[in-house]
């Protein structure tokens, strides 16, 4: 087996470069804040950040000037309100100007699918009658070659690097994911390089015991990082709950530029790595976010010898 396990520092140093198109995906769940913070610590600049829901993870990266462009479909703090750092960048150019390229959710899904399938575009029944095509020239319409009308199309999206978080993987990067699947599979197959970050590294036999749960095979993975609690303040199904209190707290912190920078100084630049963040966050946080137990019934794959 090809052992791809590396430290977060080395994974970012190797695969994320200035000017890259980076997609840290994960819809509400499994958002890899640990990778984002390491990118910030390593001072990457001029990134094109791709993500359906920029969430707090890109709000923080944009607050320190990592990005020059954002490709997205929902620009909010889910269930709370605005993303204030991104608004400052868009409205006032603080700390650097930010270009927006905007889609709907299915449009972003379609872009990753077209990228993964090596298609020239992805057709979808969306955008018609909306103002999207007026503000994004990459959203277009084509006539069906079968005479069945006009259909919206979006171009492929092939990020330079995709970073996805999951529950567990083996050392080669074959990854088990459960709960919300988001676009983790699609973005992994679309990207030129893939970093998988997991709560636990497990033996290959664990992965092979339940192949239907393998969302991403090691085939498309370049690096595997073990980073427990690496998705906090988002969540990992069955490992820890979403830290909704922090999502509310960030709304207050991020309204103020200085408070934002103070928080980042303490929790991003003031720690060596995710391990130190987890330790400093304290046991009370992790106890508060413990999810309890709800096991699935085991299934029989059969032993066809």
């Amino acid at each position, binding site marked *: 087996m090809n052992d791809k396990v590396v430290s977060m520092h080395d994974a970012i140093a190797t695969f994320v470069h200035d000017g890259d198109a980076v997609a840290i995906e994960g*819809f*509400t*769940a499994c958002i890899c804040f640990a990778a984002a913070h390491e990118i910030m610590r390593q001072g990457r600049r001029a990134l094109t950040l791709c993500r*359906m*829901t920029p969430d707090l993870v890109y709000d923080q990266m944009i607050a320190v000037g990592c990005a020059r462009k954002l490709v*997205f*479909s*929902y*620009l*909010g703090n*889910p*269930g709370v309100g*605005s993303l204030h750092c991104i*608004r400052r960048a*868009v*409205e006032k150019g603080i700390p650097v100007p930010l270009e927006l390229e*905007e*889609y*709907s*959710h*299915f*449009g972003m*899904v379609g872009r990753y*699918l077209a990228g993964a399938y090596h298609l020239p575009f992805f057709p*979808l*029944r*969306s*955008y*018609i*009658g*909306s*103002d*999207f095509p*007026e*503000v994004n020239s990459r959203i277009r319409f084509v006539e069906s070659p079968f005479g069945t*009308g*006009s259909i919206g199309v979006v171009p492929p999206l092939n990020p330079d690097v995709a970073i996805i978080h999951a529950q567990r993987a083996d050392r080669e990067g074959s990854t088990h994911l*459960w*709960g*919300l*699947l*988001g*676009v983790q*599979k*699609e973005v992994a197959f679309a990207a030129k390089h893939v970093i998988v970050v997991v709560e636990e590294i497990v033996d290959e036999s664990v992965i092979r015991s339940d192949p239907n749960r393998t969302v991403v095979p090691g085939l498309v993975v370049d690096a595997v990082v073990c980073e427990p609690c690496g998705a906090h303040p988002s*969540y990992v*199904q069955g490992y820890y*709950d*979403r830290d*909704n209190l922090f999502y509310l707290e960030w709304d207050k912190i991020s309204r103020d530029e200085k408070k934002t920078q103070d928080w980042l100084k303490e929790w991003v630049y003031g720690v060596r790595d995710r391990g130190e963040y987890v330790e400093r966050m304290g046991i009370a946080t992790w106890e508060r976010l413990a*999810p309890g137990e*709800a096991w699935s019934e085991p299934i029989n794959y059969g032993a066809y010898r």
Partner: protein
Amino acid sequence: MGRIGSPMNDYTFSEMMIVAAARALAGVRTVFVGVGLPNIACNLARRTVAPDLELIYESGVYGARPARLPLSIGDPTLISGATSVCSMADLFGLYLQGGRVEVAFLGGAQIDRFGNLNTTVIGDYAAPKVRLPGSGGACEIAINAQHVFIIMRLSRRSFVKQIDFVTSPGHLGGRGERSALEMHGNGPQLVVTDKCILHFDEVTREMTLSSLHPGVELAEVQAEAGWELKVAPALPETEPPTVEELRLLRQELDPQGVYTGRGAKE
């Protein structure tokens, strides 16, 4: 919680709004849910008028059975115990675009008389006065769901003559325009507000006031709309919430009053 078991004339406008939205789901099988008011309305409907209702969330969940009030559409409580959890490609492709969603709830910062919705910007797109979250799945939901129900507080700031950006197309310019564009869904069917309920005229597709919540005057509603509202010939009073509806809301669905406590009735 001293309000439990109180008479049914003691309720908030938000509670009236949730109850009215829930009742509109009578007999519906699949509903596409947002967070907040639609989420509570759908859960209330499942316990009252639509016991077979399946909740669909754009995060990839079909048949959710939330054990707590979800604070986002990706809350982990939506996954544990659900019928199915799938990729977003499957959710948007197979469920939504495949025509399996009977009703979808939408809202917005601005709506016009034909139910077109804006959740993108206030002001000019390139230099907005307010940058809003954008579409999420709303654009394709508005186009593909069989029926769209809109839930929004009535206010002159929101109910406007001309919206600044069409994020989610409703009936566009009115009669026949959706079908001319071969949209598969039927578009907006009703608007539930904290003051009244409006339907869309069968022919013109224009929003038409169809009932007033108890204690609300027609003039009050008209004053909060940015155009001269069409009014149905018979204008009944919305039936107030029942004791049982309020009990479910207050004891089971939103015991903290996160969504039901706002906009308290004077």
